């Protein structure tokens, strides 16, 4: 019976056409030394640009935690000759959208604009000004600092924010990845600190550019030159320290919420590490595969303990976390934790079954085009490839890399990367 089912799956898998839908990526370097990745696509009159700087929270000085986000917010709120309202008005006039984010490694500035000449030229010029002449007006600095403080104070009442902060602290201790802004660190920030952080981190050697959309190569090159011409040529890249693995621990934080929030995990995986493929293929079965994962079946389907439960690898410049997360009614938090630990332990012991391994590969390869079906998704992938200097054929090789993973690869990779003696657990609002 089992053999039959196995053969059937194998058959299905083999006849599924493996379409490599990866778009061709072009690469060059601007005169100022910024590396550029470009994907040409004329299907829609849209251009997307992402500028990433090695200016994430890992580069903050401990006493200044919060400065990375504040700096990123402020760069677009005032440039030479234009105040924040003028910038926002001109962007809106041409229908362009500016957004961004800050994570441990990166501070991103993301522009989406229509590709018509009169529209895109205005948007590119604004982005150039944001990259080259941000003014950090004092009044705007004070206001944004106050807004950040208000947002932080609110976050510190939320169980989902509390559990995340405690989890990263437990995993990384005093390593830069374990750092969080506090009301004290934010309150002491001054405008000069932001100017200094900007000068040290928003430079050409720390920048990567990703461009996707309705431009020719020549146009894209011209835009890249224009955007980066005025970036400072130093300081260069700095390395983030290698984190030490924590000892296993369990922390409980009281909270009046109806649901307990649980996170389990440890520092596990760097960008570019060859264990990436065995880990994501294995994790599909454990808790990455949505409704069909083992965690979802055990925690949600069989016991009704939670609306959602997941496991996830987040590779970073240094070891990024493996995490398992769920929320469950306070009174059953202990039972849900026990089930979760048992699912993890049995997975680490045995790995996926043959059928599970096939299903994981089938979905990860079959769904690959779904992750590259829009300019937005392509931009996101290309920006990661550029920032972390992954091979340019990363997307082309993706399906083959998944296909080559064996059961023993998975077991060995999990045994190396997810060792129970380093696993930390944080529970907010448990009993």
């Amino acid at each position, binding site marked *: 019976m089992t053999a039959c089912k196995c053969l059937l799956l194998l058959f299905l898998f083999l006849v599924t056409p493996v379409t490599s839908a990866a778009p061709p990526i072009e690469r060059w370097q601007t005169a100022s030394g910024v590396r550029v990745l470009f994907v040409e696509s004329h299907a829609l009159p849209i251009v997307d640009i992402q500028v990433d700087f090695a200016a994430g929270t890992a580069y903050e000085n401990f006493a200044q935690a919060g400065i990375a986000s504040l700096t990123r917010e402020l760069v677009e709120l005032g440039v030479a000759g234009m105040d924040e309202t003028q910038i926002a008005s001109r962007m*809106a006039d041409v229908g362009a959208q500016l957004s961004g984010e800050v994570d441990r490694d990166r501070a991103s500035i993301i522009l989406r604009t229509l590709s018509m000449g009169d529209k895109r030229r205005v948007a590119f010029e604004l982005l150039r000004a944001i990259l080259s002449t941000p003014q950090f007006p004092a009044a705007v600095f004070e206001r944004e600092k106050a807004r950040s403080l208000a947002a932080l104070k609110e976050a510190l009442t939320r169980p989902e924010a509390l559990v995340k902060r405690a989890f990263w602290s437990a995993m990384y201790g005093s390593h830069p990845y374990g750092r969080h802004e506090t009301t004290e660190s934010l309150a002491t920030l001054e405008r000069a600190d932001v100017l200094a952080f900007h000068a040290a981190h928003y430079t050409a050697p720390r920048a990567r550019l990703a461009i996707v959309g309705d431009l020719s190569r020549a146009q894209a090159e011209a835009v890249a030159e224009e955007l980066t011409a005025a970036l400072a040529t130093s300081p260069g890249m700095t390395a983030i320290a290698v984190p030490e693995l924590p000892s296993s621990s369990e922390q409980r934080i009281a909270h009046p919420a109806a649901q307990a929030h649980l996170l389990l995990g440890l520092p596990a995986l760097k960008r570019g590490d060859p264990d990436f493929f065995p880990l994501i293929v294995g994790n599909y079965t454990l808790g990455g595969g949505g409704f069909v994962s083992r965690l979802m079946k055990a925690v949600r389907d069989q016991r009704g303990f939670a609306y959602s439960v997941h496991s996830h690898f987040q590779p970073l410049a240094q070891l990024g976390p493996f995490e398992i997360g769920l929320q469950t009614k306070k009174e059953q938090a202990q039972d849900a934790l026990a089930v979760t630990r048992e699912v993890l332990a049995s997975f680490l012991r045995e790995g996926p079954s043959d059928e599970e391994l096939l299903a994981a590969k089938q979905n990860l390869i079959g769904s690959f085009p779904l992750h590259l079906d829009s300019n937005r998704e392509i931009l996101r992938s290309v920006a990661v490839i550029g920032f972390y200097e992954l091979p340019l054929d990363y997307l082309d090789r993706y399906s083959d890399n998944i296909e080559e993973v064996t059961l023993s690869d998975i077991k060995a990779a999990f045994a190396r990367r997810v060792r129970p003696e380093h696993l930390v657990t944080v529970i907010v609002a448990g009993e």
Partner: protein
Amino acid sequence: MRMRPTRLIPLLLALTLAAPALAETFERQLANGLRVIVKEDRRAPTVVHMVCYRAGSMDETNGRTGVAHVLEHMMFKGTPTVGPGEFNRRVADAGGRDNAFTSHDYTAYFQQVPEHKLGEMMQLEADRMRHLSLDPAEFAQELRVVMEERRLRTEDQPQSLLFEQLTATAFQAHPYRVPVIGWMNDLENMVPADARSWYDNWYAPNNATVVVVGDVDHQAVFKLAAQHYGTLQPRQLPVRKPQDEPRQLGIRRLVVKAPADLPLVMMAYKVPVIRNVEQDVDPYALELLAAVLAGHDAARFSTSLVRRQRLAVEAEASYDSTARGPGIFYLQGSPGEGKTVSELEAGLRAEIVAVQERSVTADELARAKAQLIAGQIYKLDSMFAQAIEIGQLEAVGIPYAQHGRLLEKLQAVTAEQVQAVARKYFNEQGLTVGELDPQPLPPAARSPAAGS
């Protein structure tokens, strides 16, 4: 995870209407009443397949609130030929992803898969359109999941609690007063028969629209649809009572106390929605008003309330001109440091008064329209967003064929019309104001993380 969009969605732009006709759309109705709408988008070898049932929480009855959403969960729990959880497994094996959501107005199920898997998806959806098992043991388990979902999305979310109470106060007769996920006590007392009768009442081809967007040929899709859905029998649908909301006769106020730090004020004004695409004027003007107030970073709320006066750390306006039920125009914000909720409420009202007295400028209107057009083009980058748009319009009774006219009507709105709607609808008579009164956490909960 299963989404459950509410009407507010304060973080989205208020402009949620139709896409321009850059891609061609085709439509056919099967003999059993099922409507099939196909939009060809050949940028990637994938397809979105969505089935929308015109039954949402507004069709529920007292004591059974939340049943539309519970049934949505049960739709993944099997038929005689496809076991519990098998639906998700089949989609995953096809290299796809799938999910579903319930709103006040409709319930939708969707899969995104490689294009050659469309037939298999139709087969699965057609099967569960009429053959759901609704096993009592599965039901009991799934009800617990839904209650966890309510805890996650509402019970522990001060903003959601305020929104739920505000809506329940603004509407007294119309079923929009009830949250889509249902009241907890109704969930606690729900039985399989409630889900069964909901399913029998509303899940029929003549109450459904199939939307397909992607790398397909429309003729081939019509053929597949006829093959898989064509054999299902139509059913007599229950009578839908209008349940019109009686006229509000004065301002209503409420307070929600919950663990939080930032206060929040939400104001709900009763306004119309589109009932006749050609003849209506006001809903289009209201869309533009929302855009001028809060559609982008240079809009009035951001410029005036957040930046200049520092009355707010955040201020939003939102309005959706398409709905089966009555419309609401929301204003909301959190006061800035040293400011009170009542000062912010006065500031929000002052912005409305400014439009009532001096209208909006030509520049502001042009900017809002530019944003609208750009937004429609950006939407074409997401097949899923296109499918949702078609499904939503059809569900509220606006044929997707009219979406181009909707855009034209929006483009034609004048400053006078914006001023007119500001004067006509923004008065105390139709206003409900809700305030979140933040309660401090117990000290044990505060100390560890603040220092970490």
